[in-house]
């Protein structure tokens, strides 16, 4: 079981890293979107490994389907022929980007591999806290969905409602922003 978990984790992690790199470094934007979809799917696999089945499903629905479709639709509106030329930024900034990302990674790794004991950030202390028996029973029967639902409608009901208002606002806002300015259109036609 342990070995199988490790194997799956390794596989998913490898796919995630490769496909994420592909999403960034592909010259063709469609290729990078496809690569991104692969990343999303692999992340949902990681979620399953983490006992987060609801998240995994949500990941596929929201990311791998919704957002990807949005991206593709926006590409349909915006892409021109010479977009493939837009690959990497100019040299100084690319070098700087590698420096920044590398330094950040080193800092994170220092943190993660527990070099800074003074900060009392000890990941192992989290692991020692074992889940209750009832939770394990629940997980085996119904997954994490009941837990999350309970949390969302009790403890986190206020953020949940605010989030719904936010989403409504975003829908209206996105529609307004993306809509072609009719006044401008009229003006353009007049001038033409």
């Amino acid at each position, binding site marked *: 079981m342990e070995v199988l978990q490790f194997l799956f984790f390794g596989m998913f992690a490898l796919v995630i890293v490769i496909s994420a790199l592909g999403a960034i470094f592909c010259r063709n934007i469609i290729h990078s979107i496809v690569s991104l979809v692969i990343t999303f799917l692999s992340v949902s696999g990681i979620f399953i490994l983490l006992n987060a089945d609801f998240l995994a499903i949500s990941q596929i629905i929201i990311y791998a389907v919704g957002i990807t479709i949005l991206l593709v639709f926006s590409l349909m509106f915006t892409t021109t022929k010479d977009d493939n030329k837009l690959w990497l*930024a100019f040299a100084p*900034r690319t070098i*700087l*980007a590698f420096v*920044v990302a590398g*330094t*950040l990674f080193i*800092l994170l790794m*220092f943190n993660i591999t527990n070099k*800074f004991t*003074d*900060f009392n950030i000890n990941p192992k202390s989290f692991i020692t806290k074992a889940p209750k028996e009832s939770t394990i029973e629940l997980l085996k029967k119904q997954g994490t969905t009941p837990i999350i639902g309970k949390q969302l409608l009790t403890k986190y009901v206020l953020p949940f409602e605010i989030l719904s208002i936010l989403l409504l606002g975003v829908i209206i806002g996105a529609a307004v922003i993306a809509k072609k300015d009719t006044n401008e259109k009229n003006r353009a036609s007049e001038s033409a």
Partner: protein
Amino acid sequence: MEFFINNVWIIPALPLWSFLLILFGRIFNVYENKYISLALTAGSTFIGFISSIFILFYCINNPETSTQYNILWLDTGNLKFSIGWLVDNLAAMMLVVVTSISLLIQIYSHGYMEQDKGYHRFFAYLVLFNFSMLALVLSTNLFQTYIFWELVGVSSYLLIGFWFYKPSAAQAAKKAFIINRIGDCGLLVGTLALLFYSLNWWTSSQNILLEFATLGQAGSLALANAGPVLFGLLALGLLFGPIAKSAQIPLHTWLADAMEGPTPISALIHAATMVAAGVYLIARLYPVFELSPQIMTIMVWVGAITAFIAATIAITQTDIKKCLAYSTCSQLGYMVLAMGVGAYSAGLFHLITHAYFKAMLFLCSGAVIHSLADQQNMKYMGGLRKKIPIVAYTYLIGTLAIAGLFLSGFWSKEAILLSLYIQGKNLLLIIALITAFMTAYYMFRSYFMVFEGEYRGHAHFHKPSKIMTVPLIILAVPSALIGFIFSGSLKSIGIGSFDSFIFYGHALHEAHVSLFLPICSLIIATLGFLLAGIIYWDKLKSLYCNCFKLVEKYFSPLYKLSTNKWYFDDFNNLLIKYLILPISELISIFDKYVIDGFINLCGISTLYKGKAVSLLQNGNIQTYLVTALLSFIAIITVVFLIYII
């Protein structure tokens, strides 16, 4: 009478008021009519003249009084600078001289400048000069004197450069201003040094700071504090002010160039009043100068050499105004010489008589120049006596006066020679007599060249207007008579001699009456007249056309020396070229590469730092992101490092 004494500030205040009115003439509609400027200027001077007459009579009736009034001007704790007005015999006399000459010259200027575009500007400058000169005369202390001394210099600068579009006039104005700066620098340093060495006395006593009335005590205290050498340097610095202002050697070169200004200005400022301010200041600072015998000696020799050299230069000048300018220089040398040997009254007496006749001579030359359409060269004049007899006769009166033939110059020059004779300074006496001879010679020379003989020029002649000739006639009266009036001969009808009215220490009494000197000087003046007549007057000898060649032939080196003004200008130019310019270039190199370099380094480094930082501000949002992340990483790293260490 008391009213005029107590309100003497009106005399300089009215010209200032007129100046402001003309300066802002557009607001007050002054520029609509030329007579408004004239009326403002001459009116203010006229009121000043009337007041001055009353003040003079008051002072003659009460010779021992001196009134002064002070207003606290700058209170800097210990030092309390005041301005105010001081009326004593000397100031009263100077007030009358300045206002009367100014009044006549202002009226004359209307005729002279009527066609000029800058008519109102001219009168504004003129009245500004009037204000500063009168305030200088009325100063109570050395600081106030310094202020108005500078202001007088500025007016002189403005008026010399009145026709600033002529390059020569602009150059002359600059030259006068810069040479006067040298003197003013000395005066300022001397003033401050005097204040420094007598500071305790001024602060502990209740006297007005540096007031003239107690300058003698302060001077002796400064002598005790500073020692004779330093005190001598201090007094030399003070003497430099009068040397530059009164055009004494070696700072005399500006005066001849100053003749580029309009002729009324030459008469008023560069002959009668402003250049005499140097002598006036010597008179005011006499208590200080007297403490240092070396300075008195220097003063004597500066005066004597100036008198002599300027007279020799005047002999060969063909420009009528330059001739008169060097004559002025020479006569000022006489005055300084007189002050130096202790003939205080005689020097000031000569100042006053000279002011009248030299103003008149210049006005005559102005009339001649005006009537000959700006022709100044005497070679192209001649025979003008028949055309403008009034000018010719007034010029003759002036010539007689300055030559010392019976008219006013005779009396004042006589007083100077007498004091030299009494003190037994024979060398100086001989120099003075030779100068007197040369004075008579060159003045008659100019008279003959301009007014006698045949007309040699080509310019179209037109008569000067009455407004120009009337002031000449009026000025001729004091030019002829003032020496006689104040000579002491009229004691019986209540007019005392000049030296019983203005004196230093105690009044000189007629100790010595000798007929030797007057006769001697009369003979010498007559000799000068005869020599000039022989060479230049066709009635005596019609050798005019050969005279220059004759002189050039037999006295070539001397003649050259004289026409080239003893090479003073060339010497100055060489001095500037080979000494001052290299030094200033060295300094400028230091300035350019060290000081400027440092400043530029600051500027450039800031510029490049700014440019380096502005690379971040390129509008690209990712650059901002990188910057923010780098800063974040830096902060985190520093914090971690602090915790690790």
